[in-house]
């Protein structure tokens, strides 16, 4: 691993009990806007992921039977975060696999490396136990924002429904 690659092990994994303070649904004229916060980019992204997943499916109904690697690419942090969230959308609707927790996120951003990667736990979608509540087409660039202040990182994103 190169020196400029950060590694985080989330000490507090997002779960249904502590989602609320970390994820807010914001008023939006058309679709769905979410704001997730964490102590750093990785934690904020993990909460953003959980917020996204919980809009689509009851996150409590997902069992962690498997762990998959997940990666996303982009020339800047915003692009990588959007690509990462869109990767979750693909997993859910394309691969019909339900992610629950995001783990061990790392990112490198040098001239030759522009990857965000980690692991995701979850299980295949089982229509007997899981009901998809919402059709999210994609995460958009619109009003996408990563902000940092006073030791907190927030990620704001808009989903096209």
């Amino acid at each position: 691993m190169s020196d400029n690659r950060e590694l985080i092990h989330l000490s507090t994994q997002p779960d249904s009990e502590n989602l609320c303070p970390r994820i807010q649904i914001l008023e939006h004229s058309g679709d769905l806007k979410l704001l997730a916060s964490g102590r750093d980019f990785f934690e904020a992204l993990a909460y953003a992921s959980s917020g996204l997943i919980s809009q689509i499916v009851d996150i409590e109904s997902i069992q962690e039977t498997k762990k998959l690697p997940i990666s996303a690419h982009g020339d800047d942090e915003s692009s990588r975060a959007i690509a990462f969230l869109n990767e979750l959308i693909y997993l859910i609707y394309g691969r019909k696999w339900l992610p629950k927790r995001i783990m061990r996120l790392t990112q490198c951003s040098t001239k030759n490396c522009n990857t965000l990667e980690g692991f995701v736990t979850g299980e295949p979608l089982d229509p007997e136990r899981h009901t998809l509540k919402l059709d999210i087409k994609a995460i958009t660039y619109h009003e996408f924002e990563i902000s940092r202040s006073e030791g907190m990182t927030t990620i704001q994103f808009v989903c096209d429904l």
Partner: protein
Amino acid sequence: MKPSRIELEEAGLFRYRIRKSINSDMRTDGLLFLSPELLASFRADESPSQVANVATLPGIVGNSLAMPDVHWGYGFPIGGVAAFDRETGVISPGGVGYDINCGVNLTRTSLTMSEIKPQIEKLINTIFARVPAGVGRGGGLQITKPDFDKMLESGAQWATRRGVATAEDVAHMEDGGCLSWANPDKVSARARERGFDQVGTLGAGNHFIELQVVQQIFDEKVAAAFGLFENQVCIMCHSGSRGFGYQVCTEYLPMMDKAAQKYGISLPDRQLACAPLTSSEGESYLAAMACAANFAFVNRLALRRGAMDSIADVLGFDTDSERCGFGLVYDVCHNIAKFEKHTVDGKQKTVCVHRKGATRSLPAGHPDVPLAYRHVGQPVLIPGDMGRASWVLVGTESAMTESFGSAPHGAGRLLSRHQGAKLMRGEDVREKLEKQGIIVQARSRATLAEEQPDVYKNVDEVVRVAEGAGLARLVARLKPLGGIKG
């Protein structure tokens, strides 16, 4: 550009202009077709600034346009139309939307209101049971993987081979239900995976199948050409390219974002990511977009077939019988980009017209109008909300000069989904509609709340402005009898 800073200048009947002088990056004016009532409905809507943003894109010709149902979208506004020079212009996935070739088809029947009135509820329930609807729902047309790619290439032609449509149906579709430049090699395995089991599924959100009755005819000659008469029952299907199209757009947007940087295109909004039409990136997107468009054509044909079979079953007729008299009036795209010939500055030019939430509106005599309608013009289908009305209009010559042959595509959203959900519960929406004689079935009660009539602008006003501005002429108003949603 913030919406509050956008000055809209009155520019004649139902026209408001955004002067390019307000922003040095704008290459042309913005022109919005609106009434004062529709303008007032904007509230905090950012769509005028989006019209201005589109005007900054390279190679734009004519004005950056907004149809009367314009409202906020991603990159382009919904209801946005812009044409780009073939040599110097760009293609932008944000000018098409995630739901590539979302559109509408309308099927006429030989049935009248009085014949089916006692059976409306049963008809709706039967369609609801037969047609897969709802979030992520698959299970429509059974299809093999090699056949899937053939469908992407040949669109509605493939549907005729599968018995989903007839040659006559195909003749009544925009571009014959097939964009010929589709190339499945430009589509990822992931897009195939996301859309593979969704051909013939309705989806969720604002997509629907409705039974409607022709309430009033405004132009007897044109209505007769379209096979429409008062009290006639019709079927309207609204859907698009489902997860397949969403994934195509999702994957091409970052590629176009990179391409914009590569070709030195400055963007006021990353969602307007684009590439020159002549670039390999632009050509690849167009080829993949065409695959999604062909998917959507087939999807709507399959939905329609499900509705027709349901009606025939309930009434005890054969689907193909004269007693049912099913015939496709037309199928229109309202999220698309295509090369078309238009007159620009007095010269015929081939331009790439982006219609995002806009319907093509071609006049009588235009070679792209189906032969059966060429003496009157192209049907312009404008769906409304669940409670009010939908409309059939016909294309005009003035639309060719004013809007690159474009007209509105629907009522246009007024309130957010969240606001809709707070306005009335889904169950109450269902009851309220039932009291008006409209039977609605939905997989999700939340969808009913989010899609209730009051979250949309009044489609009658949108249509009034479209006609007043010369974008299309009135033919018929259709009233909903019932429908299914996801």
